[in-house]
């Protein structure tokens, strides 16, 4: 025993878990440091990107003896998607499950995740992944019929490592958000991207409007940027934002309508 923590851990009738937050970006998460008792738990975006039509492509490759090409393509696509998530969007890849990438992304501070910004970042990540995949499809042979189905959801998620440190450990990020994002992508075609209900509820108005009617088709990085970036999302049917300064000055002009008591500290 080296510390009180060890003593408590040994004497407590229940396992002791100390969750902590990881200051975004999540790229810097080191799974080797995440033993179960020191897991991360925070609100984040969970993104599942599944290669659609990959099984048919594998079957075709086996039948035609192009196994080497198939293996090379899989590794290139995996590497490209992982690099895109890590380097372009500062997200953290949890793992590949066959031809499916699971990645986590968050925007915020050491103390709080910013929900709307995180959902925006998740949307940008989905667009980036699709663009990267399209790049692969254009450059690699035999991928003409394949697509990528991407689901994203937002929510509190614990991140941990199960098993001993090293190659044999299992990276674990398991939550309702993860299940939802995985379930979402399983219902999509290779051209579609979808957001979960919680992500929609926390999304900025532009994203919510765009995804509110269901999965969006062919949302690549350019479209995602247009959706998330300011100035390009104003729809003529939608009321424009009114300046807070205008409302404050109008409120000041109407001060006679409210008799305030107390310190007036509130605003």
């Amino acid at each position, binding site marked *: 025993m080296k510390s*009180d923590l060890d*003593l*408590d851990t040994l*004497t*407590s*009738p229940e396992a*002791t878990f100390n969750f902590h937050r990881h200051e975004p970006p999540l790229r810097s998460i080191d799974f080797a440091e995440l033993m179960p008792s020191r897991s991360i738990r925070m*609100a984040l975006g969970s993104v599942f990107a599944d290669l659609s039509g990959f099984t048919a492509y594998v079957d075709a490759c086996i039948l035609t003896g192009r196994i080497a090409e198939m293996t090379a393509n899989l590794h290139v696509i995996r590497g490209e998607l992982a690099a895109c998530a890590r380097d372009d969007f500062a997200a953290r890849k949890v793992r590949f499950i066959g031809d499916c990438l699971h990645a986590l992304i968050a925007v915020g501070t050491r*103390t*709080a995740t*910013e*929900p*709307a*910004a995180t959902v*925006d970042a998740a949307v940008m990540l989905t667009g980036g992944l699709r663009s990267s995949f399209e790049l692969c499809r254009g450059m690699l042979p035999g991928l003409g019929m394949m697509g990528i189905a991407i689901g994203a959801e937002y929510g509190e998620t614990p991140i941990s490592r199960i098993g001993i440190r090293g190659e044999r450990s299992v990276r674990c990020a398991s939550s309702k958000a993860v299940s939802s994002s995985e379930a979402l992508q399983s219902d999509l075609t290779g051209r579609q991207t979808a957001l979960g209900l919680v992500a929609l509820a*926390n999304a*900025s*108005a*532009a994203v919510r409007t765009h995804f509110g009617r269901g999965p969006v088709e062919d949302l690549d990085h350019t479209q995602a940027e247009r959706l998330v970036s*300011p100035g390009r999302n104003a729809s003529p049917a939608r*009321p*424009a*934002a*009114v*300046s*807070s*300064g*205008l*409302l*404050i*000055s*109008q*409120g*000041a*002009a*109407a*001060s*006679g*309508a*409210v*008799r*305030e*008591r*107390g*310190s*007036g*500290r*509130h*605003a």
Partner: protein
Amino acid sequence: MPEPTSPRWRAAVEQVRGRLRDILDVEPTPLDARALAAYHHRFRIASGWRILVDFGEREPRQIDVLIPDGFPSSRPQFGLVERPPFLTWPHIERDGSLCLLANMSEIDPDDPVGVVERLLGKSCALVEDLLDGAMIERDFRDEFLTYWRYDRNAADGRLTSILALGQPSRRISVWQAPNIRLLGETEVQVTDWLRNRYGPDAVRRSCLERGLLLWLDRPLLPAEYPRTARDVLWLAGKCGGDAPALFADLVSERQDNLIVALVAEGRFGPGIVSAAIPTPRDPRRSRGRSAAPLFDGFRSSHLPDVVLARRYLGTNKVLRDEPMRADAAWIHGRGHDPRTVRLMSSTVTILGCGSVGAPVAVALAQAGVGRLNLVDHDELSWANVGRHPLGAASVRSNKAEALAAKLRSDYPHSRFEAFPVMAQAMLAHHSSALDESHLLVSAMGDWRGESRLNDWHCARGRSMPVVYGWTEAHAAAGHAVAIVGDGGCLRCGLGRTGVPDFEVSTWPTAAGTTLEEPACGAHYQPYGPVELGFITSLVSQVALDGLLGKLTRSSHRIYAARRPFVVELGGRWSDDWVHEYPTQFEGGVVVDRLWPSKHCASCCT
């Protein structure tokens, strides 16, 4: 959208909708039932709109304008849709509604548009301040009781504090009983309070435990609220000084439950919250067995204190609660009345606990006088009940004893002692109680007693003020005379049989000024409790002035009722009153006048 509740509601809502349309240039987006239901039911939100507001960020934020069903008499509410998690920003409740106005603020119900505009402006100003960030920590600390209340996980209403909220960190006494958990400075204070409040049989020593008061340098932020026993230990360490050692001592006493009061100075005075640490228990073991894992591996009597502290102060959850303050400073002025300290250390003896003396006693107890001696030999009768603070339950009880019992129960932090004797006996046999008093109040209305008291007072060199109070017929006027060291004594202003030299009212026929029961010598003054209220307030006011050192010379304060009241009962103003106060002919006034100094027999002896 719910059904509009009235034509007025509909008209007001329509005006607001029109104004929002003017501001936005498009029709405001109405809130659906689901969005309305997201707000707390206490607001009774019936309708609303969501508007986009640009705060200079990358994306605009949405503010909900929420119309309650009592609008425009009830305040509209405002909710922030895009917000960080609860308790990250102050002034935003769990449902996102914004705290914009203090509880006593009022709105103009005839200007619904102006009200909405004003509060919408305040909402935007609040969000701008929150985005700026400077106010966040400041307001969390300044108003920490509110945010602690939001986050507490225990609130059974039993926890009560009579602690003086001040430095340093110290040990305290805790009374743990099913009906109340009381935090006090010492065992004596706690048991005295309980005896006063619940009677002498309420106190059982087995309920007394020890606790700790931690004085924090500054109020806690929500992120610092203790979740586990270890967090409380960390707070004790942060307090420094004796706090860690006191905490270790407390743990070594092996109580079932440790209560730690956390006290800090907020913007408007100190506040108290509490964290209770239960004994760690193993839920897998059957109830009633050992309190493992506290003693695992050790016999209970051989558990080293260091190990005990580590086990006790581990990861077991604490119960965060907020005690109700019942300390004198809080009861008498919510901690902001500078008179309370002086009054609480004062002793007042009230001679005569009838229809004047008893209300004065109650008023002084409410004002915060720490100790009252109540003197009266008489029993309460049914005829007294109509104008006496004691009611039917005290009939046939001694007035002084019954009043003391009532006041003890109502103000258990103060001391009340009853002397069921006549004033003369009090002067003869209990003069030490009078000597210890800082002020005497005589409401006997009895010249024999008051003349004896005046002689006693003069013989003592008039070392403390004595306030004499009486009423004229029908309570048409009341008098409060304060006799102090300088100026005349009581007898200087009264005749040889106790008739005042100066009276306000006069009654053409003596009949009617006193009435008589159908019994020999059973006279009484006819007046009701309402008229009497002015006079008991007058006497209480002068008594308070005496306690606070505002009386430097013997003085006389007079209340004169309204003239129509006097005329209606067949009276009129006396010539003395008209001559001395010609401008006060209509009455309904309180006046001060000098009490005469004649160097009478009492003064000169």
